[in-house]
């Protein structure tokens, strides 16, 4: 009886976030089968540790578990594609950002990503390192504040900010690269 109630309470809180959980897993894992495995694993794990949820934002708590399950999955199915890059030292970062963001665009129209279509954007996102994709999704799609992104990804706030900057820079470079004529017909 109590167990039934526990299950229902969990479902009431967790099922509304199934699409968010799946979307994150799908973007991280890169394919539907693995995303489903990751999400199912995450939900079972969340249910097991449901009693450890002490209030707060349930979606953030759940996405943290989804993310951890994905990391476990990566470790168990290690593939070269899925390597998380270590964050470069802060000094280099600032310098890179400065020069890259500091260039005056020759053509402001192309600098703004206004004309990008969904498919191209999806393709570019897929080419980003997974930890860049992750922060962009959490920030722009899940609309989460830095502190929640820090909680989910398990890194300090400052790292979230620099990683987000590098992710945006990387996406911009990919976009500008894909705009170049020689790259347009490639891949």
């Amino acid at each position, binding site marked *: 009886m109590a167990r039934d109630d526990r299950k229902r309470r969990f479902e009431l809180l967790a099922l509304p976030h*199934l699409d968010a959980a799946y979307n994150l897993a799908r973007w991280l894992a890169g394919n*539907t089968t693995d995303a489903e495995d990751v999400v*199912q694993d995450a939900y079972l794990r969340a249910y097991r540790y449901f009693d450890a949820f002490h209030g707060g934002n349930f979606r953030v708590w759940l996405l943290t578990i989804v993310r951890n399950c994905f990391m476990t999955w990566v470790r168990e199915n290690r593939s070269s594609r899925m390597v998380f890059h270590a964050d470069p030292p802060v000094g280099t970062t600032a310098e890179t950002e400065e020069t890259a963001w500091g260039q005056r665009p020759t053509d402001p129209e192309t600098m703004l990503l206004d004309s990008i279509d969904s498919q191209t954007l999806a393709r570019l996102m897929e080419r980003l390192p997974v930890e860049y994709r992750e922060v962009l999704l959490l920030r722009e799609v899940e609309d989460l504040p830095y502190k929640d992104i820090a909680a989910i990804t398990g890194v300090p706030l400052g790292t979230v900010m620099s990683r987000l900057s590098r992710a945006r820079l990387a996406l911009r470079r990919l976009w500008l690269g894909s705009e170049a004529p020689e790259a347009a017909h490639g891949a």
Partner: protein
Amino acid sequence: MAHDRIRRLVPALADGELGPLRRFMVTRHLARCPDCTAELEALQSMQTMIRTRLPLHRAPPGLAARIGAALPLEAPPPAPSRPWLPAGRFAGTALAGALAGVALTLLLVGSHGGDDPLTADVIGDHIRSMQADHLTDVATSDQHTVKPWLSARLDVSPAVKELAAQGFPLVGGRLDYVDGHPAAAIVYRHDKHVINLFAWASAGSDAGFREAARQGFNVVTWRRDGITYYAVSDVEADQLAAFAHLVASG
């Protein structure tokens, strides 16, 4: 010098992470710095692109059922080392649990009651929305943010209005489930009361306002342009009716 320091704050401004003082400083700098202004615009255009054009992946239809079926097999952790619901910071959980109980009762009442079962369903959603510090997924009084955020995730584009001048400030939006279907929940306030406006796509012609009251909550429902709306709150019935007319008008 000031320029370099401010420049580093521009992404935080775009992300809504600056407090009032720093926001003021950065905004003042932007007014006379085309460089930083261009950077802010580039950032914002990228944000808009990702928010509006990145394809989202919906959970496959069978996944919820598969998870639901697997849950009972998943045993809770063996004998918790601490009491089930101790005082202090766990009080919120106890309250949430109690409220979830209320919500469940309401759901049951609805399914056995003679009238519109959805009334009880949306009241349950309304209660739940306030229990777990999860009133909004996107918290902003800007209707131009809430509407695209919801539209990008649902098949519908419900009416989202700024009604602060009329006493119903917009608080934000959230994804919810009503009757097993994804629904938009647009959140307003009236004084200290929360109003949840649920909206989802439904076939059928437009339908006028219907009011209901149950368990201390008032509900107003109507259908317009293929979208069913349920406004739920504990504000007075005539206030909620006025709110419903404001949303539906124009």
